[in-house]
């Protein structure tokens, strides 16, 4: 005899089971995917509409504020509201993650449900949903049910169909398929969709991109939101427009013509390579080192100055710097063509005094072995010429998942094109014989359509007129 608490527990369990079953049914239904997918598409549309701050920009508050000040020019007084709504980092908002999580859950349930249906006997029985449409053929035979089932089975096997049978008290179900293996198409497609969503989730959570990363020789650069990855320029080979760069310990040669390269989860494009990087230091006639500073509004004195010339921009071929103690302004012009190939870099140097009014002298500068020295106006200049590279970098840890998902989806779509033929039969004993309900399904225009029905009629010795439609 059950007690009151037992009954409550049982009622609670059944409610829980009902809810979970209902959730499972909803998640595995055809329409469940549509709502989160449309929301995801709308969210992505928002991320296309508004400029998105990359992870490395957002990781540095000062840089982020600078970025927002640029955005403010465009969106004016709407900027604070858009910022509060997360419109400038849509893919990194909690609601976007929640949406991806919901989509992943629905897809997981759909995959499990689809896989379950493939292995269970549901397909064979295919009950009311199939027969209630009124599109089935009804036959009756005087033969006993077992005999009818045997004949129908043999007729379908003779058509080279794969036949599965399920017996229940008084009823026998048959499912015959040709190309039945292609019913895995939905499963493959769902798996593809699941992997794509997973890739999107991983890329939006852990991926980042960084534009215009300048890599100098012997000066490692840390990249990524937390600076977790180390880049170092090994060399820029003179015989190719490329750069040899070490990324997290792995060396790679980047060539411009490749238009980008990839390594594990990284993708990167060499936007500027092989442009000369000039380090200059200076001494006066007594051998005392002179300070140098860039020709800017707020010059900083340095003992050695680095001047980068871009191989990608025709405008950046001239650099100016100052020797404050010698009251000298120096103009350095890079004189190679942009496409200099294996040719060593050539420069021309002008030195001016009296605030740049009086030309003191000029010198031609080439550095085939990487170093050169010039003397103008009692000042000795020491030049070290090397190359540098500029990269656009993206870290996409979900890239491979996206690729596998695409392949799975591709396989699923290809399998959909395989012509499939299915036939169901349900045989039930009546007092006088056996009642048969039969339906077949073929692709539109399939010449084999009607073949199973003709075979069954022949096997049961029934005339064409005898079936009750």
């Amino acid at each position: 005899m059950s007690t009151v608490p037992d009954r409550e527990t049982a009622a609670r369990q059944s409610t829980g089971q009902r809810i979970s079953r209902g959730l499972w049914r909803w998640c595995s239904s055809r329409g469940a995917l549509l709502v989160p997918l449309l929301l995801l598409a709308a969210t992505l549309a928002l991320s296309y509409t508004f400029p998105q701050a990359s992870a490395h920009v957002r990781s540095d508050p000062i840089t982020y504020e600078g970025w927002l000040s640029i955005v403010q020019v465009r969106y004016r007084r709407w900027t604070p509201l858009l910022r509060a709504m997360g419109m400038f980092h849509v893919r990194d908002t909690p609601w976007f993650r929640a949406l991806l999580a919901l989509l992943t859950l629905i897809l997981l349930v759909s995959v499990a449900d689809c896989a379950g249906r493939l292995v269970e006997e549901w397909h064979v029985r295919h009950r009311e949903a199939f027969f209630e449409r009124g599109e089935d053929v009804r036959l009756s035979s005087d033969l006993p049910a077992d005999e009818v089932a045997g004949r129908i089975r043999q007729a379908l096997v003779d058509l080279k169909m794969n036949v599965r049978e399920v017996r229940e008290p008084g009823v026998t179900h048959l499912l015959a398929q040709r190309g039945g293996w292609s019913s895995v198409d939905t499963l493959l497609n769902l798996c593809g969709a699941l992997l794509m969503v997973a890739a999107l989730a991983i890329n939006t959570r852990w991926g980042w991109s960084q534009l215009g990363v300048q890599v100098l020789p012997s000066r490692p650069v840390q990249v990524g939101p937390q600076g977790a990855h180390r880049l170092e320029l090994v060399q820029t080979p003179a015989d190719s427009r490329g750069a040899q760069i070490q990324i997290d310990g792995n060396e790679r040669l980047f060539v411009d013509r490749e238009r980008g390269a990839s390594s594990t989860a990284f993708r990167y494009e060499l936007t500027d390579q092989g442009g000369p990087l000039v380090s200059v230091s200076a001494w006066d006639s007594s051998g005392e080192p002179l300070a140098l500073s860039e020709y800017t509004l707020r010059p900083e004195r340095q003992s050695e100055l680095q001047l980068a010339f871009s191989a990608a921009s025709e405008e950046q071929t001239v650099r100016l710097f100052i020797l404050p103690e010698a009251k000298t302004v120096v103009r350095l012009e890079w004189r190679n063509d942009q496409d200099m190939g294996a040719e060593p870099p050539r420069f021309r140097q002008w030195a001016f005094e009296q605030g740049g009014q009086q030309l003191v002298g000029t010198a031609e500068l080439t550095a085939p072995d990487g170093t050169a020295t010039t003397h103008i106006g009692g000042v000795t200049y020491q030049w070290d010429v090397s190359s540098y590279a500029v990269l656009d970098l993206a870290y996409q840890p979900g890239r491979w998942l996206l690729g596998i998902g695409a392949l799975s989806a591709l396989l699923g779509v290809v399998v959909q094109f395989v012509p499939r033929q299915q036939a169901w039969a349900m045989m039930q004993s009546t007092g006088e014989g056996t009642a048969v309900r039969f339906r077949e399904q073929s692709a539109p225009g399939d010449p084999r359509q009607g073949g199973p029905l003709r075979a069954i009629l022949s096997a049961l010795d029934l005339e064409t007129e005898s079936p009750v439609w």
Partner: protein
Amino acid sequence: MVMTAAWWGLGYGALLVAVVAYGRHFLQHYVFRGERALPVERVASQRVGESLTMVSTILLGTGIVSRALKGNGWPIVSAADAAAGIAVLVLLLQTVWALSSRPDGPGLAATCIALLLLSYGLARFPVAPVVVPFGPVASALSDALNLGAGAFLALATAFSLTAVVSARLADRPLTAGRVSPREDDPASEMLVRASLLCLAVSLAVDTWWLQKIELGRTGEVQQAGIAIVWMVYFVALRLRSSPRWRGWPWASVLLVGFVCALPILIDVPWLALPLPI
């Protein structure tokens, strides 16, 4: 340059007249119903439309090929080029459909969609042979597959709209819960499947073989967009197995889907325009 402009101009003109011819046929056949009693057959205005569509396809196709040959590179450079490319592919598929003796094609809808795309393309179209140097085969393949997917989706939209509108105009009452066979065109489903195939291959090529980044442009954004487009159409196909989703709902899904997917497929420049920082 004059010759290239001539190809495009003549092709556009031929398409314009084809739209008028198909429109006349449509009005005759469905609106004024002068020939409603006739079985579906090719009347004169439809034949004119088919012929001019074929001429337009040849002229526009020659324009694209001549641009590639003169510039010695891949002719699809911008979103406008991609839109024009999709328009030419739509016309090509429509021509093939008409040549295969299918009497009841989506001539008016297909040529209208192609005309809209071509108008956008030509409005921003440099007549000079602007091309990008031939790079890896995968790059051209990925672009071509995206254009192919766009063309299939456009034609599927045209088919479903034609079927729905013509069924309604022909005043065929629909039984409750069922879709008239005329209102539901299975060809649109096949075309959507073909576009899904193109999108899946394009995505696979993009992630596995095409090692480009193009951060300044929209490579990564386009990938995510294509993945979402693929999933939405996959779900739409699953829904279509239910009769409630055929007919008007299916045509609406295809129309809205095509309008939303087009910017992703042609990779419009305003997708995720980066700020200079």
